[in-house]
């Protein structure tokens, strides 16, 4: 017994230096080195972060049906927790075991594409014609399309219809109205408004509606428009309309507060609708207010896309591209949207979707204009996002004034 363990351990130990030699630096990738296009592909591997039920089985079913329709018998569907997806991708990349189809959150696509891990979908004859502009710009790097996103979501204001009616408050259309409404609705344990301002990409994401609506741009964070957006967040907290805990609330926490009646309005997305319906909340949805009448409400693009990693197996990659195309057909887009609380990204489906799911009408319009976070900065977005959430937190913890917070946070 002990001998066997010794042998196993010894085997592992001797293999370790061999592994070092084999994988120490990794070879350079050679696409097209194996697999002739005529070989039949019997299975594909898919990696995403839809771990939770029912999404996991819903996506799994869609993948399997698509697989069958393109002649692939088995589709291995693996889901890992959201924050660990990229780590997994990196591990697999360095050991050359990337999946055939990879789901990526839309702001990550350009960075992964820049690293050379994704195949341009144009090589397989796929394009994004007829898609809303947001998903296209998120998935385009260096002029090439790298991902197709079947469904999108964004942010909007949710409000308790009865609470607002009782206070005689209309859903706010301007920032001034937002501030007065939020203040009026703050009473007792109930705050007027709630949003997420955490020190991570989620906090940056939630800051984009005021920032973009006010004309601020991620390429120039020190501009007065961005400062104006920071001022709005600061005013709401200083007024007492938004709890100071916003710096620690994730979007899920904001939703919990809203459901529990501790916030009359919240900034959140349509994925919360199932829980709102389960808790029997009578909610209304309104677009994010504008600061001045000449502005339009701009919301950030959310949602995930399907991509084809560079695995070097031509036959499989071609089939993978077919799978991606299948997941983006009109029917599959509608199905995914209805199941996942998303909006189909093909503009032609918008009217039909609004008729079939009237509760999502507001979001459908918002998605058509939703703006991709990586649209202008591409792979450089994450660094900017860090500056945004750092600056925002400096303002909300009274460590910097809106005018110089972004500079203090490291804006260039």
């Amino acid at each position, binding site marked *: 017994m002990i001998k066997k363990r010794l042998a196993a351990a010894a085997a592992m130990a001797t293999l370790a230096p061999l592994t070092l030699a084999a994988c120490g630096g990794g070879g350079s990738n050679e696409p097209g080195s194996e697999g002739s296009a005529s070989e039949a592909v019997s299975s594909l591997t898919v990696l995403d972060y*839809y771990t939770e039920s029912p999404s996991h089985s819903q996506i799994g079913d869609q993948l399997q049906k698509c697989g069958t329709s393109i002649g692939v018998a088995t589709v291995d569907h693996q889901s890992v927790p*959201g924050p660990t997806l990229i780590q997994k991708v990196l591990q697999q990349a360095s050991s050359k075991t990337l999946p055939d189809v990879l789901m990526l959150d839309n702001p990550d696509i350009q960075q992964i594409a820049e690293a050379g891990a994704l195949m341009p979908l144009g090589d397989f004859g796929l394009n994004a014609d007829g898609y809303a502009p947001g998903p296209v710009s998120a998935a385009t790097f260096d002029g090439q399309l790298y991902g197709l996103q079947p469904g999108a979501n964004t942010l909007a204001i949710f409000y308790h219809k009865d609470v607002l009616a009782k206070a005689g408050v209309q859903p706010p259309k301007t920032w001034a109205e937002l501030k007065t409404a939020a203040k009026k609705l703050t009473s007792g344990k109930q705050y007027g408004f709630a949003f997420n301002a955490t020190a991570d990409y989620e906090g940056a994401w939630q800051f984009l509606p005021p920032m973009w609506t006010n004309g601020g741009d991620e390429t120039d964070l020190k501009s007065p428009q961005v400062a104006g957006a920071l001022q709005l967040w600061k005013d709401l907290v200083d007024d007492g309309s938004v709890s100071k805990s916003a710096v620690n609330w994730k979007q*899920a926490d904001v939703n919990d507060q809203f459901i*529990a009646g501790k916030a009359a309005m919240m900034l959140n997305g349509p994925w*919360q609708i199932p829980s709102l319906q389960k808790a029997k909340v009578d909610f209304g949805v309104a677009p994010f207010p504008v600061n001045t009448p000449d502005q339009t409400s701009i919301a950030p693009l959310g949602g995930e896309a399907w991509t084809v990693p560079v695995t070097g197996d031509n036959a499989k990659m071609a089939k993978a591209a077919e799978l991606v195309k299948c997941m983006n057909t009109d029917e599959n887009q509608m199905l995914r949207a209805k199941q996942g609380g998303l909006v189909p990204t093909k503009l032609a489906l918008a009217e039909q979707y609004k008729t079939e799911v009237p509760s999502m009408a507001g979001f459908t319009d918002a998605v058509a204009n939703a703006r991709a976070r990586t649209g202008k900065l591409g792979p450089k977005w994450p660094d900017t996002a860090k500056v945004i959430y750092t600056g925002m937190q400096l303002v909300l913890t009274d460590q910097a004034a809106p005018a110089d917070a972004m500079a203090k946070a490291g804006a260039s």
Partner: protein
Amino acid sequence: MVTHQQRLAARQTRRGLRTGIAIVLLALMLFPVYWMLNISLQPSGGTLPSSFFPPQPSLAGYTTAIQDQGQNLVTSMVIAVGTVVLTLLIATPCAYALAQFRFRWISWALLAILISQMIPGIVIANALYTLYENIGLLNSIPGLIIANAAHAVPFGILIMRSFMLGVPTSIVEAARVDGAGLVRAFLSIVVPISRNSLITVGLFAFLFAWGDFLFALTLTTEGDITPVTLGIYTYLGSHISNWSAVMATAMLASIPAIILLVIAQKYIAAGATGGAVK
């Protein structure tokens, strides 16, 4: 004069008082666990319980957990117990050697062991993925056991060594003089004397493996081997979370584990070394 019975009664009261205080201390310590129970009974699935006691307790989280997580519980248990066995097998002899043998390189060995404990877990997990991928140990329970045990071995060596420093060499020498080989002396004398430290290290090896998330995530690429730490992500999506099911799973999973721990604790007897020298 205090009678014998009075003294006995006084001692029993003192002991009963100690139990009472211990329960209060435990209650304070476990309050967050009570809060998890509270959250697990929430019908809404959020983490914001409205009060100390759930006004409308719902067992939905528990039914979901029981339906989904049975296999995962078994997986966690198998991996944890396997880790305990493997860790003790590897670490105990080494701990004794580093405590009692006179090698010139003991300090260096200890330094190497300590350095191994300073490495962030994720660095190890990433390197291990490549290694396992090459020798085909991915997606296997033995693979996870080996990884967890290898991770716990340095800890085990350090702890057991500190206990074994106190093992009197006279009794080992006595056995050797009587003709016992080194291994025999080790197995029949040192191991029983070090029972406390073995159980303690075994406890922690179990806890490390039970709570391991990193290796479980990294070293599996298909969904079929999921210990509980991974299994709870069935209820935690990147957008939506069902915390009552998560908490229910955590609570239920702890029950068999705590039973094992209670049993193990009973074996940490007093003064194991003291008796032997006589």
